[in-house]
């Protein structure tokens, strides 16, 4: 463990059976091989996806559509919330009126009455994407 400069020297690079220079070159090559294959894969992917596209495209698109619809719902809701808040304040300036609008992400909703881990599938990511406070 104790380091000292006594052991300095080029011989260290070839001590024992181990050729550190060859190793370094091979190591550098492996890094290049790995990233080059990734690079090639990325180049080929769009072509591959087109071929596979006919079968898989539909379900994925369905999911995309659902997500999009949820986004729209969410945004409509926010719009409505803000509008409601403003409207209420403009027209009923007393203190106690309550703003209540449906919140998809609400923990109390029946879909979230989940006693199980699956219940976590509450799709709060839609909410989060819109207000990324965390």
């Amino acid at each position, binding site marked *: 463990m104790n380091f000292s400069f006594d052991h300095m020297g080029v011989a260290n690079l070839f001590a024992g059976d181990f*050729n550190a220079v060859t190793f370094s070159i*091979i190591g550098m090559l492996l890094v290049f091989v790995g990233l080059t294959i990734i690079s090639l894969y990325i180049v080929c992917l769009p072509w591959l996806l087109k071929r596979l596209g006919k079968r898989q495209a539909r379900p*994925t698109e369905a999911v995309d559509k659902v997500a999009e619809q949820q986004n729209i719902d969410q945004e409509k809701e926010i719009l409505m919330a803000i509008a409601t808040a403003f409207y209420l304040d403009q027209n009923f300036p007393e203190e106690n009126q309550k703003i209540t609008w449906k919140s998809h992400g609400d923990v109390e909703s*029946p879909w979230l*009455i*989940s*006693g*199980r881990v699956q*219940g976590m599938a509450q799709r709060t990511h839609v909410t989060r994407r819109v207000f990324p406070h965390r």
Partner: protein
Amino acid sequence: MDFTSFFNNTGIAHLEWGNLVMILVGVVFIFLAVTKDYEPLLLVPIGFGIIVGNIPPIAGMPLGVYSEGSVLSYLYFGVTKGIYPPLIFLGIGAMTDFSTMLSNPKLILLGAAAQIGVFLTFLGSLYLGFSLKQAGAIGIIGGADGPTAIFLASMIAPELLGPIAIAAYSYMALVPVIQPPVMYLLTTKEERRIRMKPPRKVSRKERIIFPIVAFLICTLIAPGAITLLGMLFFGNLLKESTVTDRLANSARNALIDIVTILLGFTVGASTQAQTFLTPQSILIFILGALSFVVATAGGVIFAKIMNLFLKEKINPLIGAAGVSAVPDSARVVQAVGQKEDPGNFLLMHAMAPNVAGVIGSAIAAGVLWSVLGKF
């Protein structure tokens, strides 16, 4: 230092067919999660974990969940010691609303009936030659409750933990595929169209007292359920008391998310083909599927039996929700019911046996543990 020895240090050199099969399984899990939306919170971590676990490691390097001193082995510790499942139950408790159950207590019995799947699978596994402990751990797959299955398996049959965990979670994800045929087979069109009265409103006081009393009742009968039900009802008390809302919030968000990530990933990574692809594992998968079928049937048939004595008939479909697999089996009930009668909303009713099923399988696990643990 030549290229051959270098090649022997790569993963490709040690890749076997089994690994490729398992990697494909992992990819299918992720595919189902992303395109079919089958329980993505379980299938994505497990699927990627399966891929990670099947990259063949180099001998002598601590990489996999089973090699001492590896990072994955430390993360897997929470699985082997049964620590993650109770923490997940804590979060689940903090997001569970027992209101529907409190407003219609007789539906709780459906959650008990579905546990017949646990005990019949236990007997079946024994018959096939599994040891008592192994049979008990396989039986609990019928509880349709991933954390409970992992917890019991880690306590009495750690050697089967991998296949049991994967089977339990896979079938939970496949509930929308497994249950409907059984439900159609056992019910008539008229029964599926039965409408039920909306549940009554439950007071805050009832909801605060419930987790305490329910915990005492369950664990005085089956102390083996202390850990799982203690955490479940503790989480629920944090939620319902409302004065500890920030704790409930962290339990049902940061805590359960982190534990779910680690649990799913390491359970997936424990499926190295070399130890996982055995006739035993395949048998466990078959037994697991059967137990889900039996449990579903048990719930539905018991609902029909109850109807013989009840004036206000219950829709026997909601018996299927007694398996737990919350909230998926309740959603399945809703979907099947609505196909017959688009104006029939069974979801809220189905939630009652659904959460009761969680308690039921935790009690079953406690009983199995306390008796079989001694052998």
